[in-house]
C-alpha cells in the first residue's frame, strides 16, 4: 500500500499532515510512505527526520501512485492526480464548499474521508481533528490577542503604579473557547465567558472563570448548539452589550453546524468598547460572530480592532501537526485490516465521514490489489 503526504505549505498553512512519529507508525502498519520535500519544514520537521522515520522524501509525488493521500485542506487538482483510481483521500475536505471536487473524486472511484465529519463520539475522540485543531486555535487566539493588546494581561503592583488585569470575554465555549479561557486565565486575565448551551456554565467555572448569565437553551441531539430565535438573540445582545463594553479583549468562537455563525456582537456594541480594545472573531470565515469582521483582515471601528484570523491552529504548526497527524494515523489504522486497506462504510467512525456513501452505507470497498508493502 502506498501512502503520500504532499507539501501544502503556503502563507497561511504551516501544518503538515504527518510527522516523523506518525510516519514510523504508518510504515509499521504496512504502508510505503512518500512525502514531498519540505512538507514539514515550517512546522519544524526536517526532510531528514522523515527519511529516518522510513518515508521516501520525494520532490513531487508521481501521478496516480497513491492508495492513500493524507492532506490538511481539500486537495488541489495536482494533489488529486497523485491518487490512484479507487484510492482514498483523508483530510478536511470541506465538502459543502467543494462539490465539484467531491464529484470528481467520486467519478474516479476515490473514497473521500472528511475529517470534519468524524463523529464527536467518545469512541472517536482520538480521531477528532476538529477538537485537536480547535484546541490549537483557542490557544493561538489568546496569544495573538495578548500580543496585540496594548495592555498587560495580568495585574502587577509596581513602583510605577498598579497595572490592572486585562478583562477578557470569551463567547462560545466549545473546544476552542474553553482552551481560550484556560490560556487567558494562565496569563492572569480576568476572564468571563458565555455560551448558549447551559452545561457550559459548569465548564467555564471549572476553569476558574465567570459565566455571563445571558439566556441559554438546550443543544441538539448531536451535542451541537441550535440556532437561536431573534427574540433570544436580542436578549443575548442586551446582556452581552454591557460585558463587551468593559472588556479589553473579546474572543468569539460561536458556531452552529451547517449554518451561518450567529451574530453575537453588533456594531453598536463594538462602539461602546474603549479605544485600544481588541476583538478576535474566530468565526469570521463562516459569517462572523461580530458585525463587520472580515476573514483574515483587521477592521477598525472607533479605535477598536476587530481581527478575523483564519487558520489560527497553523500558528502552532508543530503541535497542531502532531495532533492532526495523530488523528489521521488513528483514522488510517482503523481502515487497515490485517495489512489490507478496508474502507467500511458501516464503521461507526469512518462511515459518517465517508463522502458520497452516506445514503448508501455498506458499499464494500474493492479489495486492495496489493499486499503488504
Amino acid at each position: 500500500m502506498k501512502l503520500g503526504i504532499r507539501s501544502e505549505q503556503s502563507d497561511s498553512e504551516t501544518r503538515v499532515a504527518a510527522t516523523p512519529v506518525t510516519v514510523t507508525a504508518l510504515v509499521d502498519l504496512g504502508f510505503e510512505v512518500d512525502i514531498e520535500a519540505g512538507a514539514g519544514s515550517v512546522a519544524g520537521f526536517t526532510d531528514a527526520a522523515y527519511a529516518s522515520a522510513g518515508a521516501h522524501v520525494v520532490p513531487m509525488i508521481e501521478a496516480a501512485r497513491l492508495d492513500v493521500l493524507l492532506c490538511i485542506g481539500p486537495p488541489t487538482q495536482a494533489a488529486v492526480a497523485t491518487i490512484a483510481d479507487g484510492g482514498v483521500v483523508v483530510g478536511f475536505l470541506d465538502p459543502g464548499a467543494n462539490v465539484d471536487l467531491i464529484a470528481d473524486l467520486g467519478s474516479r472511484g476515490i473514497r473521500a474521508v472528511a475529517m470534519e465529519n468524524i463523529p464527536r463520539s467518545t469512541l472517536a475522540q482520538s480521531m477528532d481533528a476538529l477538537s485537536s485543531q480547535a484546541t490549537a486555535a483557542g490557544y493561538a487566539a489568546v496569544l495573538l490577542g495578548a500580543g496585540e493588546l496594548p495592555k498587560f494581561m495580568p495585574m502587577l503592583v509596581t513602583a510605577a503604579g498598579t497595572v490592572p488585569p486585562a478583562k477578557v470575554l470569551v463567547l462560545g465555549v466549545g473546544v476552542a473557547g474553553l482552551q481560550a479561557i484556560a490560556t487567558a486565565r494562565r496569563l492572569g486575565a480576568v476572564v468571563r465567558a458565555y455560551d448558549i448551551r447551559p452545561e457550559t456554565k459548569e465548564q467555564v467555572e471549572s476553569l476558574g472563570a465567570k459565566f455571563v448569565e445571558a439566556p441559554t437553551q438546550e443543544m441538539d441531539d448531536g451535542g451541537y448548539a441550535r440556532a437561536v430565535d431573534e427574540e433570544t438573540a436580542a436578549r443575548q445582545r442586551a446582556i452581552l452589550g454591557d460585558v463587551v463594553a468593559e472588556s479589553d479583549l473579546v474572543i468569539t468562537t460561536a458556531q452552529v453546524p451547517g449554518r451561518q455563525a450567529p451574530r453575537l456582537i453588533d456594531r453598536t456594541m463594538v462602539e461602546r468598547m474603549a479605544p485600544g480594545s481588541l476583538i478576535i472573531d474566530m468565526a469570521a470565515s463562516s459569517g462572523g460572530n461580530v458585525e463587520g469582521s472580515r476573514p483574515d483582515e483587521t477592521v477598525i471601528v472607533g479605535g477598536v480592532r476587530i481581527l478575523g484570523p483564519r487558520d489560527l491552529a497553523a500558528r502552532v504548526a508543530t503541535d497542531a501537526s502532531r495532533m492532526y497527524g495523530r488523528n489521521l494515523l488513528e483514522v488510517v489504522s482503523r481502515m487497515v485490516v490485517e495489512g489490507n486497506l478496508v474502507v467500511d462504510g458501516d464503521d461507526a467512525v469512518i462511515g459518517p465521514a465517508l463522502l458520497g456513501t452516506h445514503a448508501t452505507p455498506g458499499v464494500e470497498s474493492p479489495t486492495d490489489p496489493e499486499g503488504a508493502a
Partner: protein
Amino acid sequence: MMELAYLGAGVLFIVGLKGLTSPASARRGNRMAALGMLVATITVVIEILDIDAEAAWWIVIAGLAVGGVIGGLLALRVQMTDMPQLVAAFNGFGGGASALVAAAAVVTVGATMANETAITTTLSLVIGTITLTGSFVAFAKLQGLVSGRPIAMPGGTATNGVIALAAVLACIGAVATSNETLYWLAAALAAILGITAVLPIGGADMPVVISLLNSLSGIAAAMAGFVIENQALIVGGALVGAAGLILTIEMSVAMNRSLSNILFSGFGGGPIDEAIGTRPVKRATADDAAIALVYANRVAIVPGYGLAVAQAQHAVRDLAAALEERDIEVYYAIHPVAGRMPGHMNVLLAEADVSYDLLLDLDHSNPKMSQTDVVLVVGANDVINPSAKTDPNSPIYGMPILDVDEATTTIVVKRSLAPGFAGIDNPLFYEEGTLMYFADAKVALEETLAAIERL
C-alpha cells in the same frame, strides 16, 4: 497488698487501652492489657490459695482449661473477614460470665444481701444477660445464621419498651424483697430484651451495636466487682464501660449516623456494604481514606472533571505533598480526555504548581497501576469505566481507560453514584476493591488531609 496487685492490673489496662488508640502502639497496648489480665488472674488465684475445698479448685481449673482452649482455637482459626462476629461472641461470653457471677451470689447469699449489694448484683445479672443474648444475636446476624436485614418486631420499639419496663420492675422487686424468683424473672426478661433489641438492627450497623454491648459488658463486670468487693473488676469494668461508650459514639459519627438513629430505626441493609442505588457499594470516610493512603507505598491520583468542578486542584496538591512528606510515592495518572477540554487537567494542575514530572499519561501510568497500592480517583468517572474494555454494547466501548482496578485499593471521590459525561453507570464502583467516598472533591481532599495529620 493484693489490692495493689489489682491496682497494677488496672494500670496496665489503662495504659494498654491508651496504646490501642494509635496504630503505632496498638499491638503493644493489647499485650500490656493482656499482661494486666494475667496479673489479676494470678492475684486472685493467690488470694484463694488457702481455700481447702478441692472440688472448688477443680472447677476453676476445668473452667480455665475449657475456656482457654475454646477461646484460643476460635481466635486462631477464624478467617480475617469473620473477626467482627467472633468479637461479638466473645463479648457475649464476657457478659454471660458477669451475669453468672451475680447469679452465684444470688444463689449463695441472695437472701442476706445488703441493699446496695443487691442493687449491684441485680445490675450485674441483668446487664450481663442482655449482653449475652444481644451479642449472640449480633453474632448470628453477621455469621449469616439470621438475616442481616433489619427484622421488624411486632410492635417495634414499643414492645421493647414494655419488656424493659417489666425488667426494671422485676429488678426493683428483687432488691426490695430479696426474692430469688424475681431475680430469675429479671434475668429472663433481660435475655429477651437483648434479643428483641438487636434483631431489628441491620447488619451494616452491627459493629456499632457490638461496641455498645461491649460497653455494657464492662459495666456488668464493674457491677460484679461491687458484688465481690474487688477493685480490679471495678476499674477494668468501668474503664471498658466508658471507653466502649465513647468508641460507640465515635463509630456512629464515622457512619454519619446518630446512635439513637442506629438503635431505634431498623436501618442498615446487607452486612458491611450499604446500598445507595440498587447495588451495594463500600463507603469510605476521610479517616478510611487517610489510613489507606498513609499505609501505602505508592499512590496514583486520577483527576477528572469533578476535580475541576470542585476547583480542588490546590487541595489535591496539598494532599499529595503530605503523602510525599511521609515518603510515599505519588503520581498523577492523566487520561487523554479527562475533563471537558484537551489539557483540562493540565491547566488546573499547573496552576497548583504540580511538577510536570509527576504527570503520567495513559501509556505511562497504566503499566504502573498493578504496582500501585492505592488509586485516589478525584471526580473522574468515564475515564476509569471498565465497561469500555468489557462491554461491547457500551457507548464508550473501545476507549482506552486507566486500569485503576489493577491497583490494590481504589478510592473514588465523587458526590454520588451519578454518571459522568457519557451518561452510563460505572461497574468499577461496585467492585470488591473499590471504596466510594461521597463528597465534593475539595471537601473530601481537605478532610482526608486533616485526617492524615491527625493520625
